[in-house]
Each structure stands twice: as C-alpha cells, then as structure tokens.
C-alpha cells in the first residue's frame, strides 16, 4: 500500500501537501516565538533556553528540540524529493513546448519550483548563520540568540538574503496552502473563498511577521 502511494503522482502530491502543512505549522510556531525579540534580550534568550528544556522533566535536555528537528528534516526531505521527482515527470510529459507560449499562471504558481530551491538554500544559510554560527558575522555567542540576531541584521547582505527569502516563502505558502487543501480533497466550490482568504492571510502574516525582525533591527527598535 505504501509503495502504491509513493509510486502514484497523486500519492506523492499528498506527501507534499501533508509535509507542506507540517512546515506551515512550524512557521507559525517559529514566528510566534520570534516575536519575543520585541520584548527585550531577557524574554528572547529565555525563550531560546526553554526550547532546550522543552518537555522536561519527561524529556532529557534538548530531546524535545531534536524531536522537532527530526520531524522537520523528514518533512523537508520528503517534500523536496517528491517535488523533484514530480517535476522531472512533468517536464518529460511535455517534451516539445509551444511556439506560441503564453505566461498565464500567477507569479506565485509559476515560481513554486525555483522558489522552493531558493527556500532550501535559505534554510541552509539560516542554520549555518543562527544555529551553528558557522557563517555568522561578528562572534557567534552560543546561548545569546538576541545578540546573534542583531549581529546578522546589522549586515546589509543578512537583511537582503532574509527579506528576499521571506518574500519567496510568502508566495510559496500562498499557492502551497491552497494547493494542499485541493490535493487532500478538502477544497470545494463553497469553501474556496475561505480557503483562498486563509492562504492569503497566512502568507501575508508570515511574511510581514518575519520581515518585521530585520526591519526592527534596522530601525533600532531591536538593538
């Protein structure tokens, strides 16, 4: 059964839909946590510490965090592998294009594939920058996320990479959320307006919320 599922184009799309929704759920939680940056270093660093002791005393130190990381990595990998295999198939299904080609789909729909690649690259940079500190500008301090965030957004390239990636994320979520609903069979004529509004709302809230952090650093609200 699992094999039938994975081998079908519909099954792979369902995998993409479910993993996409898991990632959207994570983005919402991640944004809510990040908003603590506007309440000072104490609150934000305290939140960072809590992530490590999440689930205690049942869970050992950092276990909660690692469980979340494993789920997320699995979601990203399954999403990307499905997308890659489906895209290869889609390109093969139209070996010869039209001489008279028209770009008709919305920008968000047309950029799902390359937008996804941009997001994957962003995630790698984001982890190297603020989790491991490998590419961090100006002395990465373990356990001082507030200062690390301020350092990142004090560089022009940190701001540019982040804001471009968040705009790409917003568009990806806008088409992705609505598409996931259709793929999972939850859409209908009567529900479409609500689903489109939710997709747009999610995209705008997530994009604006995350971009507010570099803007906060640039304007000196966070320093």
């Amino acid at each position: 059964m699992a094999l039938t599922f994975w081998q079908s184009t519909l099954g792979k799309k369902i995998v993409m839909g479910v993993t996409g929704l898991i990632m959207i759920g994570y983005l919402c939680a991640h944004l809510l946590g990040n908003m603590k940056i506007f309440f000072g270093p104490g609150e934000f660093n305290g939140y960072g510490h809590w992530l490590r002791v999440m689930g205690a005393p049942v869970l050992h130190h950092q276990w909660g965090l690692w469980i979340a990381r494993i789920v997320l990595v699995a979601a990203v990998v399954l999403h990307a592998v499905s997308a890659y295999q489906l895209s290869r198939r889609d390109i093969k299904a139209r070996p010869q294009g039209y001489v008279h080609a028209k770009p008709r789909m919305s920008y968000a729909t047309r950029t799902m594939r390359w937008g996804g690649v941009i997001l994957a690259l962003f995630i790698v940079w984001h982890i190297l920058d603020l989790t491991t500190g490998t590419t961090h500008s100006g002395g990465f301090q373990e356990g001082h996320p507030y200062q690390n965030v301020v350092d990142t957004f004090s560089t022009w390239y940190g701001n540019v990479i982040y804001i471009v990636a968040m705009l790409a994320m917003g568009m990806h979520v806008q088409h992705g959320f609505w598409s996931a609903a259709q793929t999972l069979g939850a859409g209908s004529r009567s529900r479409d307006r609500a689903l489109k509004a939710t997709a747009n709302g999610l995209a705008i809230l997530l994009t604006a919320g995350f971009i507010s952090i570099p803007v906060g650093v640039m304007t000196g609200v966070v320093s």
Partner: protein
Amino acid sequence: MKLTLRVWRQKNADTPGAMATYQLDGVSQDMSFLEMLDILNEELIVKGEEPVAFDHDCREGICGACSLVINGDAHGPERTTTCQLHMRSFQDGDTIDIEPWRASAFPVIKDLVVDRSAFDRVIQAGGFITAPTGAAPEAHATPVPKADADFAFEHAECIGCGACVAACPNGAAMLFTSAKVNHLNVLPQGSPERETRVLDMVSQMDAEGFGGCTLTGECATACPKGIPLFSITAMNKEWLRATRKVKR
C-alpha cells in the same frame, strides 16, 4: 479577411516538424475556424501541395474530435471547441499560430493530428459500470438524488478532447480523469467499482506518461465544457478514500 497562418507541419511521427507560413485571403468572419482551414487546404490542393491534416468530426462541439492550439490557447481564444470557434474572434490582418496538442502521451501522427488513444486506455481501466446485458432496466428503479444527478452531469459533459492536457504546463490528464471518475463514482450505478475505478484509472493515467497536477488551473480555463477545477479535488478525495478501503 486576410490572414497570415503559421501552421505546424510534420510528415509523420518519425519526422521532425516545423512551422510553415501561409497567406490566406477572402476569409469570411462567419466561417468557423475549421472552414477557414478547409479553404486553406483547397488552395493547397490546387497548388499541388499536401493539405494540412487536422482532426474533426461532428463540427457541433459535442464529439471531442477537434483540437488545435491556436495562438497558445487550446481551442483558441473563446471557451468552446475549435469547430465552434468563428473567424469573427480574429481581426483582418492577424497572424494566427496553429499547433497540435503537445504532450508525450499524445504523440503527433501528422501535422495537427495527435494520437489520443491514451485517453481510451484510461477509460478502459475503469471508466465503465458493471451492468447486466439485455433489455434496458426500468429507469425509476434506481433513485438518484437531484444533487448527485447534477454533479454527475456536470462531469459527464467531458467530451475527452484533451484540451486540459494541452493547456496544462505539465501535460497532466487530471481534469479528464477526474471528470470520468466523478461522473460514475457519485451514481448508484457506479458504486460497485467506486474504489477500484479511481485507483485503476489514476494508475493508468500515470502509466501513459501524463504529468502531475500543480493546480495551476489552466485545464479548467481551457475546458470547452467548463469542467471545474474542483473536479480534481473531488477525485483526490475519492483516491484517498479508496487507498484506505482497498488493500492491495
């Protein structure tokens, strides 16, 4: 009307094709698009050239035989079949690009004619009901709720022309397959094969080499019969339900 036509010419499946340019004068606005091509072919025959091959049958918009991607649109600028498209939709002096459906599952046979038998095989996989042969049964013996009858009819309108595949950037046959699945799955007559139908038709659709759905909505925009994009959503729901019910 005086027109410049750029038409895809291809001798056969094994020979590479190319766009050829023709000038056509004396086209009436009241002609259908196919009548305009008939005029072109008459001129070509008089000149001793090979006429342009294209599919057509009823010319009433109900059989699904005609095709053609006209200026990048499947069935042209109006939401109808090519046979019901009229030259009044174009301007005097226009250049019109005419191409065949493009999909690896629909190989070109000649010029603008493609092989759409992949659709027949998708139907053979499950687009039927198990019915006893013999005299027609009493129509009122099987009650069908009005809402279900309307839903079935909306999907039964699909004429299998393949415009959805031609318009889809992925060459996907999701709208065709979903129309056929939904049409029968909602009716009591189709319920004995409800699960196997959707599983078998989808796996045949994949086996034919059609692409996957990325929900661009191009298929539903191009469909001359107005099959809605939600047809695909409904099929996804049926497929998920069937994978849970049928153990394979």
